[in-house]
Structures are given as structure tokens and as C-alpha cells.
């Protein structure tokens, strides 16, 4: 309906402002986009899929934020199905479907079917099992999920309570939940969607020789630890749970509204022998004993892979938040310049991005997107290198891979989750509104710091590894180094007693990039040595050291980010056209100095830097931000996040922030279609409904 608001314009023209920003930088956006996103044809694929999805009404995102949980799942399932049907119509491959899910930007109820379910079958099933299951999975004749976590056990698989008892008489396993806390919990796609589940349960096999009787539940059985089973859970036709299984959705969460995370309990539920995935372990027909083959550590391989993916994903998520924040803060004006004279600056207010308090929140995060990128690439290489070794039977690299992946997963997801929130707050009031596009993003992403291993808990893996490395180097300081960590520790031990704190500035006051890398390395080595001392020499309790060790993990991972970024400046990024390499160098310096400034005590206490470095840091960071500022809009443009994915009034490419915000509130908001009765004397809620509030009470 037309009204007088149709002709109103914002006071400042957002589109012109962004155009001016883009004119002010010579960065070649397309070239930088290719540099960042050409892996696996990401950019072309993104373009192709956006084209299709944005034409389907079902993928219109304007209403979803206001929907109830049931409606969100309903919508989520509709979209998941639609993607599969479109995929068949358009001939999409697996990567295309994953791209569609990424762009659709909500957890699909099929997500676990396409990821952990199929991966587990592929990696842990025998050839024969694969032949049976793979066609059914790929054709969606069955829908699967991955049921590992339980009500009282998350990342520690050894503590799982669900048991699978081997019954040699009937040649069956009996899956059972002895306690309420054995209930499977949080498992995606399980609540309403899946027909089958990979169930991780403690395998109990009857003891060969009966020992003395015990009153425990496991009397007469030997526990072989967690094993994976494929289990049908719902009836094919009615989709009702099978007899002996109770399964459902666990309820609303911070985010993930479209996903049916589920719970599941078993009452002596029987499955045939073939349910156990047997690539690495099998119950012998002859002896009834468990026969293992291959290395069980490979089970953790998929977890490590998932972590690697999380890091690659993290950079795009942060880029998205930063895109919205940079564009909006370029358009948003606030307050006049305090030092300006009345004549020069009285009329226009400053862009928020020109306030150091605006910049200091956003620009270091912009630099962080690149830092994560170059380490993501490094991780990808490390994974494929290690994977080849593992497949060929060499499990050596798993330690370094696992430790690096856990520390980096922890750091990068924390950086990104906090970064989204920082961007959201830097946009102040409007950041809180649904129009920011960061409301949903924040809610979805916040699960990351606690899934696939809690960020605080998994860092223990890194430090255990570093302490082991340091111990080895202390014992044989001249052995030939196996990897960069060995080299670092060896050189640390040689110089430990006579090194002086270092400056990151050269004698002329210019930044010295190599010195920056060196202080990050020194800090890591020093903290590793202290951890080694505290644990192995002074024999401190592990729990008492946990905080110190957590800081070490962070320092180690920060050092990886800084080192990889620095290396990339000289390799891949160096060949880009001017001024991009220089701008990326500024990003590198800003990221490093900002990180240094946030942990300045740690650098100081490890004698990594001079006190004078700290006093020069603030000015230096301000200067770097001034250098970076003109390129900010083009740098976020280079991440090529489509408007369809941003789903943000504040962050749209064209900069029409206020028009779009108003449009969302005024024309797309269902609450405005209802007139309420605000008088407390009347129990009627919707004006003219005359129901005296019964509608509300009926739902309680």
C-alpha cells in the first residue's frame, strides 16, 4: 500500500558513499578474490548456485527470524528436500549441494546424512558393508545421522555409557542405555529426520575365561571401548521409532533452529552382527573375540578433518561479519569532528569508520580474515600430506596434525565467534536488530567454540604435544630436527641464557617484519619451556597448570597464524598487482601488532619484547589503521560474499542501508499486519478478535 513514506530519502546517500570508498582504492577486487577463493572453483560455484537459489521463493529469507521453532524446522526440511530435487534437476554434484547449504545458511536437517554419516560408512565400513549401504545413502533411500555425544558426555568418547553386548548364541548385538545419562544427545538430524543412525557404543564381549563373579553391569564381559554400529531407528513407512527405541528432538537452542538435534535411548535393542562397522575391528566367528586390524587412531582422523574444515569455514564467516560492519560503518555517520572549526566541518558528521574507536574494533578483524586464510591453506596442505601418509600406514604425522588442528580450531573459532559479536556491537543499536544479518550468524556460529571438542578442553592436546617435543629436545638437543617445532626449540635452548628482549622496530622506528615473527616464536618457545619445567621438572599437578597451558596453546596457534601470513607475503600474495601486496603487508602487521598488544603481558613476561616496543605499539597500530582505512571497503568486497548470503540491510553491496532497513520493518514484518488491543482492562489481545485471551492460554 503506498503511503507518504514512499518518497522519503535518507539524509546521507549510502550508495554514493560506498562508491566514493571504492573509487578511493586501487585494489583489483577480482584479482584478489581469485587469489583468495579460487580453490575448488569456489567462486564460479558460488555464482552458479546463488543464481538458482535466489530465484526460488522457498529460499527467501525475509521471514525466518521471527518464526517459532516448529516453523523453522518445517522450513528447514522443505529447503533441504528442495535442494536435493534441484540438484537432481540441475545435475549438481556433492560440492554443489554443500555450496547450496552454505548459501542457504542454516543447518539442514540432512546435514549429518551428507557429512558424518556418509564419511563414517566410507571410512569405517568393510568393503562388503560399503557395497550394501553406499547406494542407499547416496540415493537418500535411507537418511542417516551420527549418534555419538550423550547427555552427560561430550567430547570424551571413552566415557560413553551406551553399551552394545555381543550375544554369541544369536549372533546379535544388544544395544542398551543403562542410565538416563546414556541418552544420545545433541545428535544432528536425529530428532525428527533420520531413519538410520551411526551409534557409537561401548562394545562388550563375553570373557573367554570366567573370572570371579562381580556385581557390575558388565559382569562376565570385557569392554573393548567405543565402536561404531549402523542401526535402523525408524520404521520405513510410518517413520515411527522402532520398538525398543525412544527418540526425539532436544528442543530449542541458541541457534540451529532448523536442525533437529536429537536424543535417543535403547531398551535392549537387537541388531545383527553386520551392524558393527568392521574395517578396523570385528568379532571373530570362531572364537567370539574381538579382532582388530589397522590403526584405531584413524578413527580420530575424521575428527581432525572436521576441525580443518571448521578453520576454513571460520575465515568466511568472519569475512561476512566484517563485510557488514565495514560497509555499514562507512555509511553510518555520527557526531561532528570535535577538533573541527565551525566553518570547516559543521555540517557533516563523521563516518563511524573514521573514528579510531570504530576502526580498532573492525580493522584488526579485517586483517584477521587474511591471517586465518593463509593458515587455512597451510592446514589444508598439512592434512592432505598427512592423510596420504596415514593411508599408507604411517601414523607419525597424526600427532602433529591432531595437535595443530585442535589448537587452531580453538583459536580460530574463538576469534571468529568473538569477532562476529565485536562487529555486531560496533554497529551499535542496529547491530542488535534483525536487519544486521549478524543476529542469525552469531547464534549459529556460537555453537562452534563448544562443539567438536570444547575450546578450553581440546587445547590440552596441543600442550601435551609441545611438552613432549620440548622434553625430547632437552634430552637430545643436537638430534636432527624433524619439523619446524624441533628447530625452534633447539635454537631456543641454545640462546635461552643470553638472549635479550627484542624490539619489533628497527633503529629508524620502522617495523621489522622478521622481528615480529621472531618475537611470536620466542614467546611460544619460552612458554613451552616453562610448561616443561613446571610439569616435568617441578612435577606440578596437571590441573593446576591448565590455565598456563591454555595460554601456551593460544601462543603457539597465534605464532602459526603470524608465521604463515608472513610466509604468504613472500610466496603467493607477492605476485599480486600493486597495491595489493602492500595492503596485505599492512594487514599482516596490523594483525600481528594487535595480537601482540592484546597479550602484551605475556610477551613482556617471556622477555620476548622490549618495554619500549609496548609504548610504541599504540601509535604504530593507529598508523597501520590509517594506511588500511582507504582500502577497507574493497578488501571486504574481495571476499565476494553475495547479498543473498549476507541477508543484511546494513551490509548490502549497494549501500542503501536505511532504505533496506525501513523496507524490512515496514513492508516485510508480519507483526505490523496485526492490530492489538493495548488496554489492560480488556483481556482481548488482538483487537476485534473478542477471544478474551483464550488463544494464549490454550497454548500454555
Amino acid at each position, binding site marked *: 500500500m503506498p503511503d507518504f513514506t514512499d518518497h522519503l530519502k535518507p539524509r546521507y546517500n549510502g550508495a554514493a558513499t560506498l562508491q566514493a570508498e571504492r573509487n578511493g582504492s586501487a585494489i583489483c577486487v577480482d584479482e584478489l578474490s581469485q587469489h583468495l577463493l579460487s580453490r575448488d572453483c569456489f567462486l564460479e560455484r558460488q555464482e552458479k548456485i546463488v543464481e538458482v537459489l535466489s530465484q526460488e521463493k522457498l529460499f527467501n529469507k525475509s521471514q525466518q527470524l*521471527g518464526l517459532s521453532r516448529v516453523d523453522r524446522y518445517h522450513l528447514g526440511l522443505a529447503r533441504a528436500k528442495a535442494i536435493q530435487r534441484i540438484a537432481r534437476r540441475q545435475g549438481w554434484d556433492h560440492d554443489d549441494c554443500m555450496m547450496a547449504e552454505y548459501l542457504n545458511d542454516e543447518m539442514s536437517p540432512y546435514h549429518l546424512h551428507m557429512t558424518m554419516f556418509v564419511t563414517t560408512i566410507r571410512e569405517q565400513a568393510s568393503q562388503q558393508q560399503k557395497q550394501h549401504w553406499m547406494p542407499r545413502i547416496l540415493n537418500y533411500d535411507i537418511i542417516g545421522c551420527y549418534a555419538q555425544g550423550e547427555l552427560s558426555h561430550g567430547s570424551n568418547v571413552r566415557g560413553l555409557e551406551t553399551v552394545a553386548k555381543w550375544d554369541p548364541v544369536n549372533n546379535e548385538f544388544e544395544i542398551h542405555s543403562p542410565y538416563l545419562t546414556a541418552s544420545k544427545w545433541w545428535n544432528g538430524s536425529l530428532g525428527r529426520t533420520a531413519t538410520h543412525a551411526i551409534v557409537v557404543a561401548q562394545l562388550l564381549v563375553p570373557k573367554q575365561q570366567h573370572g570371579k563373579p562381580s556385581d557390575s553391569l558388565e559382569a562376565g564381559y570385557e569392554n573393548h571401548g567405543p565402536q561404531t554400529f549402523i542401526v535402523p531407528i525408524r520404521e520405513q513407512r510410518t517413520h515411527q521409532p522402532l520398538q525398543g527405541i525412544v527418540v526425539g528432538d532436544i528442543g530449542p537452542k541458541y541457534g540451529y533452529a532448523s536442525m533437529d538435534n536429537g536424543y535417543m535411548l535403547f531398551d535392549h535393542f537387537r541388531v545383527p552382527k553386520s551392524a558393527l562397522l568392521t574395517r578396523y575391528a570385528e568379532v571373530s566367528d570362531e572364537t567370539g573375540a574381538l579382532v582388530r586390524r589397522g590403526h584405531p587412531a584413524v578413527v580420530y582422523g575424521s575428527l581432525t578433518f572436521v576441525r580443518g574444515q571448521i578453520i576454513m569455514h571460520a575465515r568466511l564467516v568472519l569475512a561476512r561479519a566484517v563485510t557488514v560492519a565495514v560497509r555499514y560503518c562507512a555509511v553510518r555517520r555520527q557526531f561532528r569532528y570535535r577538533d573541527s572549526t565551525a566553518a570547516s566541518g559543521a555540517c557533516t558528521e563523521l563516518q563511524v569508520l573514521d573514528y579510531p574507536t570504530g576502526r580498532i574494533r573492525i580493522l584488526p578483524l579485517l586483517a584477521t580474515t587474511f591471517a586465518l586464510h593463509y593458515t587455512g591453506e597451510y592446514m589444508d596442505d598439512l592434512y592432505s600430506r598427512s592423510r596420504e601418509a596415514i593411508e599408507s600406514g604411517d601414523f607419525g604425522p597424526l600427532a602433529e596434525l591432531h595437535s595443530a588442528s585442535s589448537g587452531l580450531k580453538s583459536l580460530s573459532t574463538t576469534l571468529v565467534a568473538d569477532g562476529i559479536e565485536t562487529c555486531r556491537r560496533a554497529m551499535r543499536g542496529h547491530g542488535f536488530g534483525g536487519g544486521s544479518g549478524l543476529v542469525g550468524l552469531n547464534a549459529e556460529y556460537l555453537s562452534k567454540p563448544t562443539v567438536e571438542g570444547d575450546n578450553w578442553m581440546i587445547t590440552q592436546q596441543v600442550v601435551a604435544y609441545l611438552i613432549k617435543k620440548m622434553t625430547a629436545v632437552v634430552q637430545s638437543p643436537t638430534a636432527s630436527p624433524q619439523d619446524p617445532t624441533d628447530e625452534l626449540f633447539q635454537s631456543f635452548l641454545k640462546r635461552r641464557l643470553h638472549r635479550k628482549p627484542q624490539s619489533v622496530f628497527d633503529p629508524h622506528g620502522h617495523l621489522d617484519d622478521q622481528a615480529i615473527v621472531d618475537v611470536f616464536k620466542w614467546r611460544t618457545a619460552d612458554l613451552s619451556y616453562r610448561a616443561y619445567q613446571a610439569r616435568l621438572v617441578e612435577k606440578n599437578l596437571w590441573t593446576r597448570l591448565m590455565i598456563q597451558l591454555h595460554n601456551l596453546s593460544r601462543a603457539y596457534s597465534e605464532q602459526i597464524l603470524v608465521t604463515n601470513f608472513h610466509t604468504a607475503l613472500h610466496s603467493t600474495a607477492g605476485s599480486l598487482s600493486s597495491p595489493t601486496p602492500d595492503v596485505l603487508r599492512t594487514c599482516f602487521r596490523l594483525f600481528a601488532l594487535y595480537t601482540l598488544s592484546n597479550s602484551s603481558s605475556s610477551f613482556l613476561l617471556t622477555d620476548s619484547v622490549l618495554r619500549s616496543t609496548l609504548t610504541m605499539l599504540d601509535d604504530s597500530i593507529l598508523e597501520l589503521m590509517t594506511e588500511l582505512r582507504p582500502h577497507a571497503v574493497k578488501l571486504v568486497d574481495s571476499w565476494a560474499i553475495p547479498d543473498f548470503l549476507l541477508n543484511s540491510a546494513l551490509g548490502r553491496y549497494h549501500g542503501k542501508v536505511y532504505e533496506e532497513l525501513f523496507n524490512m520493518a515496514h513492508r516485510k514484518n508480519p507483526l505490523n499486519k496485526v492490530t492489538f488491543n493495548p488496554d*489492560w482492562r480488556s483481556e482481548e489481545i488482538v483487537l476485534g478478535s473478542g477471544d478474551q485471551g483464550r488463544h494464549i492460554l490454550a497454548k500454555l
Partner: protein
Amino acid sequence: MAPTPDWVKQLKPSGSQGSELLVAERAKSDIPVQKLHELLLTKEVIERKQRILAILKSEKVFDKSQNYFSGRMERFERALAREKKLQLLKRKHKWTLDEFRTASELVGEPGPYGLHESMFRITIAGQGTPEQQEKFGKAAEAYKIIGCYAQTELGHGSNVRGLETTATWNSQDKTFTIHSPHLTASKWWIGSLGRTANYACVMAQLIVEGKSYGPHPFIVQIRDMKTHEPLENVHVGDIGPKFGYNTMDNGFLLFNNVKVPHENMLARFSQVDPKTNKYVRHGSPSLIYGTLTWVRSTIVMQAGSVLARGVTIATRYCAIRRQFQDRDAPEWEKGENAVLNYTMVQIRLLPLLAATFALHFTGKGMMNLYQENQKRMNQTNTSRESNKRGAGPEETESGSDILADLHATSCGLKALSSTIAAEGLEVCRRACGGHGYSSFSGIGPWYSDYLPTTTWEGDNYMLTQQVARYLLKSARAVLKNPTPTNDTTRILSHFQSRVNIGCAFDILGSDEDIVAAFAWRASFLTFEALKHRDEQKKPWNDLLVDFYRLSKAHSQYLVIKNFYDVLRSGEIAQSTSPPLRTILLKLFQLFALHTLEQEGSEFYVSGACSKHQIMLARTSAVMNLLKEIRPHAVRLVDSWGFDDWVLDSSLGREDGKVYEDMFYRASELNPLNKVTVDPYPESEVLFKKVEGGYGKSKL
């Protein structure tokens, strides 16, 4: 869904039961919970809460079981029904204002009458003439009109001078024309405006004979009293779903040359004389911002208890949750360890537990300061001449030292305390591991409703400029005349007197020295900033980050000082036993040393302490405090006295039945489990069976 089978009903959580674990936790400590509870809230408030809670629990409309499942529309409808019921109960039980506020606080969600109750009525009372109070105030009190407070706009937040909405004086017919010249002039974010209010107090630029006199408040009718439809040339609606606050109808509002009579401009402090058409100001403009200052003080006070809710939930759950075996545990001890025994969980939760007390006592101190100030200002105000200076939130009159001190502290402490509380809640949520992500944790929804506090009523970063400006002014005053007139000038002057002598604070041996070290660092940063600004003539904007740090440092000093002063006060000495005082003192030390250690490099660079002291604080003092406070953690959160109905959390239940409750909510209360789906992609059917029926798709 089929009814829960018996074999499920009979299942228990494995190992030690949550209820037993909490009993054991409580047995480990001898903290007198009730005593501490009374010290925090007073007997009177506790009694009031219990009485009102009983009433609320007996009304079906306040049933919370579906809160976490509903969509925006349903939540808003229900919130409106609850607001109406509260008004009914208020009259039925003849509640006082305090009792009514307690009831709203216990319901715990922002309601559609919220801004009518607070800002609309308060603004009329504070800025209206007696006649206006009679006309608008009375009608508002009786809910004959329902109002809101329309200040911020689409393009402008806390900078009131930048507002675009205009109110132009028409000398012919003695009216004002309210108008929105741009789209960005749209009022935005205004609570209670979207669907509920029929009146608004609109802040608009007053224009008289072509000259602008800055923002002023106007009472404007916006909806028809009978049909509740917007009046002609008024365009109003709800702004849509948000991160939190979804029970509130935050709204937008545009005017197309709408005329209001002369009497609708609130005229206690300034008016347009209808005879001469001249703008006249009378009374102190600083009072206009008194409301904002009061709001900020309550925010500081609330921050403690807001955070305490998250800390209560996380502490209880972490005392029950077990994960991983301790690496040093002997082979035969197979059980997993309660995560609260891990130092890396303690270092996240226990300093926050300490912060709840620190913020609470600081808030208490501020409220006293506010009341004292209010009294004095009312006394001096009557004698004050009219003031020609334009008003602005950045430049309030610093007539009295107390006013200036209060204004600066309210900004800085509001910024610091709401940041500590908001970030602390998120830390609590993450400390709960995976289950923290579930709505049933009770922390997530609470966090999202609290978050606007960090951006509303002045963005935390922006507010810090006001503090810095005040501190620089004080420092300049001290350089001219070192005789202190208030606490801020006292610490600055002390620092200045020793700037060439230095200091030696025994931060690990003496509590007083901790306070002194915080004062020293704040003073050091003040004079550093002054040097940058006055000697090196750096542009103001280049110093904003320095100012942010300075404000934070000064506010941290204030919290430390207030907390310490309260602990040494007569009130505490009378009402607490020595062991309780010892624990409170340890909480003070933990909060102070943990903060100091986090900001270690600033303390070191300022010379307040040595590198060695910071290292010892980190590796020894803080660690020992964690160990000493750990046994008392559950009792300390108990003493905040949150009722389970208020917490609405599976993880934070007082009886520790964490897993039973999680399971109950998932399987019994969850409407999604009434749905049977068709999961196969080739079928267009989505929900093939829904118990109790289901509406059509809402896309």
C-alpha cells in the same frame, strides 16, 4: 508422539546423582547462605519477592514452559497478555511501585508496557509543568493513554543533537508542526511504540522563526483511541525481530507535517512564549539528562545480579558435570572429574563470581551518590539563574563537584559493568560446554535480552569519552591547584606529588596497596593522555582508543575501591561473622588481582608494580585464591537466592536434577516432537502427522 514408555521413566542418571553432588558441595562450606542473602538484598526485599512470586506462579498466563519454543508473534501476544495481567494484579493486591517493579523483574522479560511505565511517565513527571502533569501525567497513570519515549532515529543513536525530526513553531495558530524530512529521521528502536502505544513523547529539533534550539520533548498522539489505527499522516510500526527483546514491540515512527497544540511541548525547563513567539529557558538543563544518569546507575546495580544468574547456573552445573579423568589421578580412581575442579574452569567462573559481588556493592555505592546528588541539586536549583547555554549530553554543567563526579562515574561504570556482565554471561554459557548452547541452559535467552544494555543508553565506547574528558579536566585542575576537592582529584594529586619519587605497592601483601595500585595506574594514564592532548596537541579522535583504556582503568579503580570500602564498612562488620568476612575479602582479592594480572602490562608500564609481582600474581596468588574459594562456590551462588522459576534453567536447578530436567523438557514440553515427518527428498510432503494439528506454512 507415543507416551513415554515405563522403561524410560525408570532410568536414572549414571554415577553420583546431581542432587547428591550439590548436597556434598554445600556440606563442604560453612558460609551462612541466608545471612549473605540478606546482606545482598535485605530482609524486606526477600520477603517481598517471595510473596509476589507465589502470586505469579499461581497465574497460568505466566507459565514459562513454552517461552523458548515460540515465534515472535506468539511471544509478543503472550507478553502483552502478561502485562495486562500484571496491571490487574497490581490493583487487586494494591501493589506499591516497588512491589510492581519486583513483579516485572520476576517475570523477567521486557514487556510492551515497559516504556510507558518507565520513560514516558518519568519524562512527563520530570519535564512537564504542573498543568501538563495534571493533563498527561494523570491520564498516563490511569493507563487512559499509553505512551513511549521516541528519541533515537534510524540514522542517529545517542547523539541527540543530530536528530532530524523537527518541531516547527507556527506563530499564527500557536501550534507545532512535527515532521520527518528524511527517511533517516524515522524514530527507530522505540520500545512499546511498534504496536502498543497510542501516545509518544517525541524528541524533535525545535525551530522558532527559522532558528533551531536543539532537541525538545513533545507529547504527540499517534493512534486512534478507539480503533488503535495510526492517525492520518503518522506512520508507525514494529521494526521486526531482534537478537533479543522479542517480547517488546520496538517501533519506527514518521510524521508528515502533523500539528500539535502549544501545550504539548513539555515546558518545565523551556518553552515558546505564545505571545511573543520567543524561546524562553528556565531552570537547569542538566536536569534533562538526570533521567539518563539515573538509568545508568540502575544498570550498574543490576549488572551484578544479571551476571549472578549466569554464574549461578554455570557454577551449579559445573559442580555436577564430569568430564575426562584427571591425568594425575591414580589408576584405581576411574571416575571422571567434576569440571569445577579444573583450574581452567575455575579461572573463568570464580573471578566472575567475585565480580557479581563487586558490581553489586559498587552499584549500591552509586545509588547512594545519586540520591545525595539529587537532594543537593534540588536545593541549589531553585536559586539558580536561567542558563543560556545549549544542552548536550557531552557537556553538562559541572556546577558541583558531586554532579560532575556522578556524571563521569555513571558513564564509565555503566560501560564497564554492562560489559563485564554481558561478556561474563557468554563466558558462563561457554563454560557449560555443549549444553550451554541449548535454550534450556537459561543463559542464552537471558544474555540476548541483556545485550542491548551495552549499546543502548549510550554506546559503551562513546560513553568512555565523557569519562576521559572529565578526567582530563580534573587533571588540569590539579596541575593548577593540588588541593583535592573529591576522590578523583585526590588520587590525581597524590600521583602528581610522587611522580618523581615513584611508588612501591605491596599488591600481594596488602589490600590497601591493591587499591592504591589501581589508583596509581588510572592516574598515570590520565596524565599520559593529558600530555598527548595538551603538550603534543594530538587530535581528539586520535586519542579515542587511549581514552577508552583510560576510562576502563578509572572505572576498574572505582569498582575496586567501592568493593573494598564496603567490606571495611560498619555495616559489614555488624552483619557478618569473621569467616564470612574472610571469604568476601578473598573474593575482593581475586577480583582485584585477576583484573590486575589481565591488565598486567599497564600496571608494569605505569610503575605500579614489578614484572615479578605480576608473574607471582598470575602463577601463585590467583591460583591460591581459586583453590581457597572453590569449596564455597556453590554456597556463594546460593546466597544470591534465585528461585528456579526465575532461572528457568535445566542446568542451574537448585536441586541439581540437571539431566532429568533436560530430558523432561525435551521429551514432554517440546512441540516439535508432536510432528512426524516424511524425510525423503522425492516426496513433497513435509509433516505427515501432527498431534493436535498444525497451521499452514508461514513463509
